[in-house]
């Protein structure tokens, strides 16, 4: 159980597992490790909350950005002309 004792102090590992978990299920042992760590580490509990929040914000930021940008008509005209030119070839 040396490994489980070590995880209590290992915030590096715990934060790593929290990030990994957003994309892949953790193994049973990893879940136990993370659980033990978070139970005793308030700093990582703050990290956990913030990491989740940041993930949501990044997601939203990227999606909002997608609705903000439009090509202007001049650029579209240039594109259209290039396509017509190619089609004539």
């Amino acid at each position, binding site marked *: 159980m040396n490994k489980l004792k070590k995880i209590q102090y290992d915030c590096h590992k715990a934060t790593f597992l929290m*990030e990994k978990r*957003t*994309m892949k299920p953790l193994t049973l042992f990893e879940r136990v490790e993370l659980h033990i760590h978070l139970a005793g580490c308030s700093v990582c509990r703050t990290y956990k909350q913030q990491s989740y929040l*940041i*993930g949501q914000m990044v997601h939203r930021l990227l999606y909002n950005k997608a*609705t903000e940008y439009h090509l202007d008509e001049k650029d*579209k005209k240039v594109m*259209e002309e290039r396509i017509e030119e*190619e089609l004539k070839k």
Partner: protein
Amino acid sequence: MNDQQTLLNPHNWVKTYADYLYAFAIVRINDEELAKDLVQETFLAALQRTAAFEGKSTERTWLTAILKNKIIDVYRKKSSGLKQVEMIAAEPDQEFFNPDHGHWKQEHWPQPFGIENHDPLHNKEFNHILQLCMEKLPALWLSVFTMKHIDDATSEAICTDLKISPNNFWVIIHRAKLNLRACLQKNWI
């Protein structure tokens, strides 16, 4: 006129898809001029490949796939410092954590942002800082991060597209978030 050309209507491409494709590109590469060029290149590349269009997907999906490949090429070019990252990845992360036992260094302890209970998602200023912090990330990290958050791509797909090892991938995901969080803390609190 052959079948492909009746399925595809290049005369309407710009009108129908240009804005969509442009937005798709800008979110992923954050560079207006380059995004514009990629959309143009996508249309031209598509014209060369009309014969390969089988009508199995929609015109939009097909054009988007071509654009996506072009974006990945940009990512790869931008992250030509890849070798360097591979090297760093082998080192334990000593900036934030004590190398002996992995505990946070005290000066890097996450502090509450103080807006957790005030709908931070809609806090404009906080979002602005987040955007600036994202722009500070190394190109490869930001590419990985963007693919994860906007395409919901799997780790395997991102590794294949960006030619990075799974091990490095997880290190990047971890580091990108640690750095982003630290940057927010530094500039917000």
